[in-house]
């Protein structure tokens, strides 16, 4: 009796404390961080495993410590960095020649030369190097230095977006060359040509960078740039509010609370989509009528408003509607009535429990999402509920990739992806039929000969108009035979202190690394 009453009292006390906290958390915060405007501290959710470009660090450019031959500006146009100019493309798109910038030095004072470029690319392509992204450089047949200031890439096949790959950071041969590439200390003590130098990397706590005074692009005004590694969203928000951080990446619900607190919220547009794979090997999802019905039966706007709290856009395909690669006329209109008509016409008749049937096959399929990923879970549940309304059942299940991968040929998966720099990077591995089942490429085993041909044209043709036409074909084919139901493109939200002025964001990919967000160009901030 007494033990029980004590336990009850304990529970009451906990509940009371909980209420106190939750009401307190919604109270407006006070004061931003003081301190010199020559330093900035931002909170990020992700910590790189390594800082070695040879193992994949900064492969999409903008690594702060390193430079690539080329780099992206705000609207993702390529600009020369370690190269003196954009590459000369010859031999029908098979040879790329880069003239290198002169007088560039690594932050240890040693000069940067063509040998470092050759070393970087050759090391990554080496079989013994454990770089999981090396497939992105698959097109390269050879890299050669011509003198100290010219590098020539020869490709196996004409590859139009190749220049986009050369934003890859260049490592110094004299430091990284003498040690084991997979385990050497270069991964924790990197030296590059970039605007910042690494001062300290306390794993799990913070990465401290200091301006490189000899940077070829001019010494940055923000002299010290610290990235605090805080995995938990609530903790990051709390530390931002306490003034410990000047900026942070936050989910929409937490970012909302910072309105009008001396901080600005930036929504970075992204190519980061969430999609449902509809595997060809499944009798239900492989049926074109079912695919087309599902494509117009999902209420994408409701997902943007409800799940993303407005921080995103509806996805009509892999390409966001405001991209220049988007094909007008491929917007899907939410129309469950028409979806039902498509299914009726194709012979999918409602069964006893409301789920349709055709030739003894029930219109039901499993839909997997990565367990622990709240965003994917919400998307999957919304998708299942919309499908249910037209008599199709998606059984939502959670699992890790180890559980999901072997089921991909027959079960639907709530997947994510998207790469802004070139449509080829994302669409080729997603849709090519000969890549079906190759690792995580073409997870839905999509098989469409017209799409295959268009992807090949888009990849090989150096002509912009011809490429645009090819990707138009792909997007139109995805309306006729949608092997994936694209749902939303997600905005990434960042909150930054006002004293840094008005900042900008880049269009971001699915896998946004260290230097995404308003601090993508921290070296150019003018505090």
């Amino acid at each position, binding site marked *: 009796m007494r033990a029980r009453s004590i336990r009850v009292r304990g529970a009451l006390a906990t509940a009371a404390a909980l209420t106190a906290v939750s009401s307190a958390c919604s109270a407006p915060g006070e004061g931003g961080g003081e301190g010199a405007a020559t330093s900035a501290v931002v909170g990020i959710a992700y910590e790189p495993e390594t800082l070695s470009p040879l193992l994949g660090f900064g492969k999409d450019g903008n690594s702060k410590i390193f430079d690539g031959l080329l780099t992206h500006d705000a609207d993702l146009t390529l600009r020369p960095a370690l190269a003196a100019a954009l590459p000369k493309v010859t031999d029908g798109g098979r040879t790329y020649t880069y003239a290198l910038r002169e007088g560039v030095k690594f932050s240890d004072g040693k000069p940067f030369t063509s040998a470092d470029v050759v070393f970087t690319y050759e090391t990554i392509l080496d079989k013994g190097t454990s770089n999981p992204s090396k497939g992105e450089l698959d097109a390269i047949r050879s890299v050669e230095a011509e003198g100290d200031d010219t590098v020539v890439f020869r490709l196996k096949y004409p590859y139009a977006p190749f220049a986009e790959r050369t934003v890859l950071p260049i490592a110094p041969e004299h430091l990284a060359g003498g040690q084991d590439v997979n385990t050497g200390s270069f991964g924790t003590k990197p030296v590059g040509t970039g605007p910042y130098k690494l001062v300290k990397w306390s794993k799990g706590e913070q990465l401290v960078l200091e301006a490189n005074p000899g940077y070829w692009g001019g010494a940055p005004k923000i002299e010290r740039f610290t990235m605090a590694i805080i995995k938990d969203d609530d*903790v990051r928000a709390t530390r931002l509010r306490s003034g410990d951080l000047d900026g942070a990446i936050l989910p929409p619900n937490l970012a909302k609370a910072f309105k009008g607190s001396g901080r600005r919220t930036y929504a970075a547009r992204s190519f980061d989509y969430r999609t449902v794979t509809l595997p060809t090997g499944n009798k239900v999802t492989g049926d074109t009528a079912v695919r087309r019905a599902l494509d117009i039966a999902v209420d994408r706007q409701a997902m943007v408003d409800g799940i993303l709290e407005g921080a995103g856009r509806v996805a009509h395909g892999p390409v966001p509607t405001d991209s220049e690669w988007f094909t007008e006329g491929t917007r899907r209109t939410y129309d469950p009535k028409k979806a039902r008509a498509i299914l009726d016409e194709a012979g999918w008749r409602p069964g006893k429990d409301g789920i349709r049937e055709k030739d003894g096959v029930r219109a039901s399929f499993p839909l997997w999402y990565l367990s622990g990923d709240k965003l994917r879970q919400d998307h999957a549940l919304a998708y299942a509920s919309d499908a249910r309304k037209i008599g199709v059942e998606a059984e939502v299940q959670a699992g890790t990739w180890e559980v999901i991968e072997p089921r991909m040929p027959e079960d639907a998966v709530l997947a994510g992806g998207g790469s802004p720099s070139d449509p080829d990077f994302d669409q080729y591995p997603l849709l090519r039929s000969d890549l079906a089942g190759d690792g995580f490429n073409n997870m839905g085993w999509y098989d469409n000969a017209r799409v295959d041909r268009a992807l090949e044209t888009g990849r090989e043709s150096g002509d912009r108009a011809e490429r645009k036409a090819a990707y138009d074909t792909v997007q139109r084919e995805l309306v006729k035979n949608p092997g994936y139901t694209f749902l939303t493109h997600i905005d990434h939200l960042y909150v930054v202190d006002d004293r840094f002025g008005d900042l900008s964001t880049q269009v971001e990919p699915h896998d946004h690394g260290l230097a995404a967000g308003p601090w993508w160009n921290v070296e150019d901030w003018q505090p």
Partner: protein
Amino acid sequence: MARLAGRRALFAVPVLGAVTFGVFAIAAASPFDPVKAYAGTAGLSASQETLDQLRANLGTDRPLVTRWWDWLTSAVRGDLGVSSALRQPVADVIGERVGWSVLLASAAFLVAVLLGGLLGVLAARRPGGWTDRAVTSLAYTLEAAPPFWLGLLVMWLFALRLGVLPAGGLTDTGSTVVTAGEVARHLVLPAGVLALSQLPWFVLYVRQGVGDALQEDPVRGARARGLAERTVLTGHALRSGMLPVLTLIGSRVPELITGALLVETVFSWPGIAAATVESATAADFPLLAALTVLATFAVLLGNLLADLLYGLADPRVGFDG
């Protein structure tokens, strides 16, 4: 005493050997794939050829027993191997972090033992009195409160509302030198939370132990002889009431390790916790095995410590058991 310690040390060798093999076997049987874990998000767009190359480079395509034996023989020679998840030699991974974890855990443990003992005795003095009720309710509440939630709570209170203590990290954010003063200030909240999460057990054990001892004949005898209440409590009741608590010290070590793991994550404390989780989900054999050996060692040491203290506190027990 030395004989007991020596015997335990000998006994530890086969235990550690068996534990490492167990870890390799469990990790091999787990659905986690070291290659997928290594590749991370890049692996979600990698081709099969790349994945196969990684598998060969990481050496995870060899059979379980071979890998274990290779690891064991080189570990005995002092080479702990290389962590695939963190792309660093295991010795570096542990060397960089374990000190901070030990600091956090021992500070918390000390506070929990001392504070728990104090509150427990206070509560046991008058069972059912208001001190007892307050302390016991507090203990149950804390037992029910998850450490990460406590972490957020104290962070909100001390870092946000009162602004007296830093919310996380080992040093001030942006600072590159580690000074004792800064570390001490940053240690208060994480160690406090970890201590609070360990506190209920000690409070309740001491309360029970001392409460029981107060009912025993020697205490009654002492009281009958007219000894001061203070002498009765500290001289008679506390000494025999503390015995179960000593056992607890040994058995709380695993809990302390898991608790530290949560607390480190919440407070961005650069300890071994994050590496432990990563090594497990990444099936990173060398790191996982080394960490398990460390944890097993801590547990064995905790048990040994408990037994030694027990022997010291209660002469009837001796050191042969």
